[in-house]
């Protein structure tokens, strides 16, 4: 049977077919849909963990038990999980263990575009890179075999283009694998220094064996061409190479670490000129050059941004391999459509008020990061998950006071890695204000459950942690809950808390307008409308940046355009009505 699957769906299917027992993740673009699709198979235990480190540890425990395990995360998630990722190298992965890294060249939805292939080299793990959906499924099986054969976690490196592109995939049946059971062996599983000193040479020897495997495996294949040009490539870059220069000889690396240096050497001898086409960093190129093999890569293809067929073609034209084609048609400059808060989004009122209060806002990762964009323009820093609180404390300590410094953090991000920051802020007597923008879901990635939603990925009811109680337990004494739909109340509370020398936590209480948790009601009041008689065309309502508000075709006597509210988009949150200076925005009957 065939099906059209995305790379992420194909990995999930691979987990089903190749008998994965336990799969974990923290949501993050572009990897989120892997777990969402694994959850459709009740044969596999799957969970959203509170963060990538925990997700990694749960999957790691499963492989210690002799089960087939997978953990998935976005590229920067692996930074969070880097501690267990590096340390388990000396233990191994007896049951089979895949670590999926969803890299994001081009930063479609990320704060950086780090190339995680380096993590494989760093830890001494094999790196597998599927180049399409079929391989995304097939490589799951190969990766698990490599993992249990060599007793090593496998870095399964995908990119946004592979994760989200769809292609035809041949489906197979599920193969069941028994869970082997934990084999007690403290010298292996307890990383005391004395044990580690013995295990390190073992890990080095393991890498030698993996090098031999890389020379022989069908993952690294040569396609003979006719024009004397040789190209070494991996991942989606392979597809672009096939498209723009089909007559070249290609060494396609499905396993990009450790490299098959002998195979590369003989491939280099068989061609006149050798190129390396790889997205982002010169990971392969550097190693090939270090082995004394002449090649070119980053000279023609930048290490910045995502590759496209156009860029691959352009590089070969610059290298004198392809002839310049006719000039492409001109691109038109058309109005931008920046992402904005959804109609009814509870973050709108919060950031509108924060802008009015003119405070320093250390922000965090989530939908609410968009508060930094005009016209709300509220948010002064954003680095990585959970950074808002630590950064606010550091600013307060350097400045000598926490007054006027607000850290804003979402509920999922707070549970991910904000709690320790808050504990520290209390201990440090930093006097900052921490706002938890609690919409009770992981919204940015499409609405995933977390420990505060009362439900698990597999659809079971779960305990629902209370954020106010967590803050209290961490030592915060001033805790306020505000309704972000009520601007005056929100402003008054925030002003008081910002002005106090004490540390305080302010928690907003409206659920996500787009993905409310299952046990929460979607906010859907009667929509608002603009009374065109009253509207003076001042556009104050535009300052709340709502997709439901646009210009009408009516003008004032002075020629100013009056406003219009799209009743099908409006959720009735009333924020725009509260900012209108002439009460021209009214709820429909």
């Amino acid at each position, binding site marked *: 049977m065939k099906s059209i699957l995305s790379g992420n769906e194909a990995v999930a299917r691979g987990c089903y077919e190749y008998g994965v027992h336990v799969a974990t993740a923290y949501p993050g*673009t*572009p990897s989120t849909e892997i777990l969402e699709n694994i959850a459709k198979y009740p044969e596999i235990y799957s969970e959203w963990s509170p963060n990538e480190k925990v997700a990694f540890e749960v999957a790691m425990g499963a492989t210690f038990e002799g089960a087939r395990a997978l953990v998935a995360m976005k590229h920067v998630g692996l930074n969070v999980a880097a501690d267990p990722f590096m340390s388990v190298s000396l233990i191994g992965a007896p049951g089979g263990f895949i670590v999926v890294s969803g890299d994001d060249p081009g930063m479609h939805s990320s704060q950086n575009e780090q190339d995680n292939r380096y993590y494989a080299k760093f830890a001494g793990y094999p790196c597998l890179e599927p180049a399409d959906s079929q391989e995304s499924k097939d490589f799951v099986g190969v990766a698990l075999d490599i993992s249990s054969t060599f007793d090593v976690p496998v870095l399964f490196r995908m990119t946004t283009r592979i994760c989200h592109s*769809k292609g035809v995939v041949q489906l197979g049946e599920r193969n069941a694998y028994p869970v082997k059971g934990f084999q007690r062996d403290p010298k292996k599983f307890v990383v005391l220094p004395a044990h580690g000193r013995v295990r390190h040479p073992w890990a080095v020897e393991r890498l030698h064996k993996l090098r031999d495997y890389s020379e022989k495996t069908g993952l690294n294949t040569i396609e003979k061409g006719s024009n004397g040009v040789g190209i070494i490539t991996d991942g*989606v870059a392979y597809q672009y190479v096939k498209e723009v220069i089909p007559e070249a000889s290609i060494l396609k690396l499905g396993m990009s670490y450790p490299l098959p240096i002998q195979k590369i050497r003989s491939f280099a001898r068989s061609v006149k000129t050798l190129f390396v086409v790889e997205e982002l960093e010169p990971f392969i190129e550097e190693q090939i050059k270090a082995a004394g093999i002449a090649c070119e890569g980053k000279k023609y293809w930048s290490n910045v941004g995502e590759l496209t067929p156009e860029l691959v073609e352009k590089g070969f034209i610059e290298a004198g391999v392809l002839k310049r084609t006719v000039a492409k*048609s001109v691109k*038109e400059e058309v*109005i*931008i459509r920046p992402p904005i808060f959804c109609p009814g989004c509870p973050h709108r009122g919060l950031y509108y008020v924060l802008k009015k209060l003119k405070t320093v806002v250390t922000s965090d990762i989530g939908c609410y990061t968009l508060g930094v964009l*005009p016209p709300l323009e509220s948010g002064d820093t954003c680095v990585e998950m959970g950074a808002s609180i630590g950064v606010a404390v550091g600013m307060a300590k350097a400045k000598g006071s926490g007054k006027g410094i607000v850290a804003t953090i979402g509920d999922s991000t707070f549970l991910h890695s904000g709690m320790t920051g808050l504990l520290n802020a209390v201990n440090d007597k930093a006097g900052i204000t921490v706002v938890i923008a609690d919409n009770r879901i992981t919204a940015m990635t499409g609405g995933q459950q977390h420990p505060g939603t009362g439900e698990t990925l597999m659809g079971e009811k779960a305990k629902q942690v209370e954020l106010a109680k967590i803050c209290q337990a961490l030592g915060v004494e001033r805790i306020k809950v505000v309704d972000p739909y009520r601007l005056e109340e929100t402003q008054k509370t925030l002003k008081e808390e910002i002005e106090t020398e004490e540390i305080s936590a302010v928690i907003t209480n409206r659920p996500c307008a787009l993905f409310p948790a299952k046990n929460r009601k979607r906010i859907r009041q009667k929509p608002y409308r603009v009374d065109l008689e009253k509207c003076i065309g001042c556009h104050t309502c535009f300052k709340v940046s709502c997709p439901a508000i646009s*210009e009408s075709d009516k003008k004032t006597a002075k020629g100013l355009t009056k406003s219009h509210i799209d009743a099908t988009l409006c959720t009735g949150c009333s924020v725009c009505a509260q900012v209108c200076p002439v009460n021209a925005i009214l709820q429909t009957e």
Partner: protein
Amino acid sequence: MEKTTNVLIVGVGGQGVLLASELLSAVAMEAGYDAKKSEVHGMAQRGGVVSSHVRIGEKIYSPLIKEGEADVILAFEQAEALRWIHFLKEDGTIIINDYRLVPPIASMKGFHYPEDPIGAVKKRIKNVKVVDAVSMAEKLGNSRLVNTVLLGVLSVSLDIEEKFWKKVVRDRVPKGTEDLNVKAFREGRGQN
């Protein structure tokens, strides 16, 4: 279909661009072709620009269409049609849904929604089909049929037998709306 056919479907997040490309690639697979489709989602839901590449043929490598290589562009919105015309082949066809979605940013200083996007497209492209899919859908009794109507219009430009389209439409639309959707598809195809 002898050569690889490239279709670019564009619009604004929430309009159904991704669903349309999903259906098109399913049709291609039904008809026995290799097919790839690609787009980037994550922030697409929030009113942003959405484009989806669909490539159909005997064997497809790149999931992305090169600029100037699209045989057909299906635009769900006027300004989006203009944004993407540099992807169209010189003799390619562009289908434009006669619908304007003006983003809120258009009311801020320095940002303008183009005055006449369709006119601007026509200045550059010979084969332009403008379709008022919203009215056609409303006439059939449901504005949510826009997607299926446009799929019907698109089907005329592609060399794939009608039975495959109808099968996919039937299989993929919500239960109970199969007949209505097939009707909308045929309406778009110009057959009712």
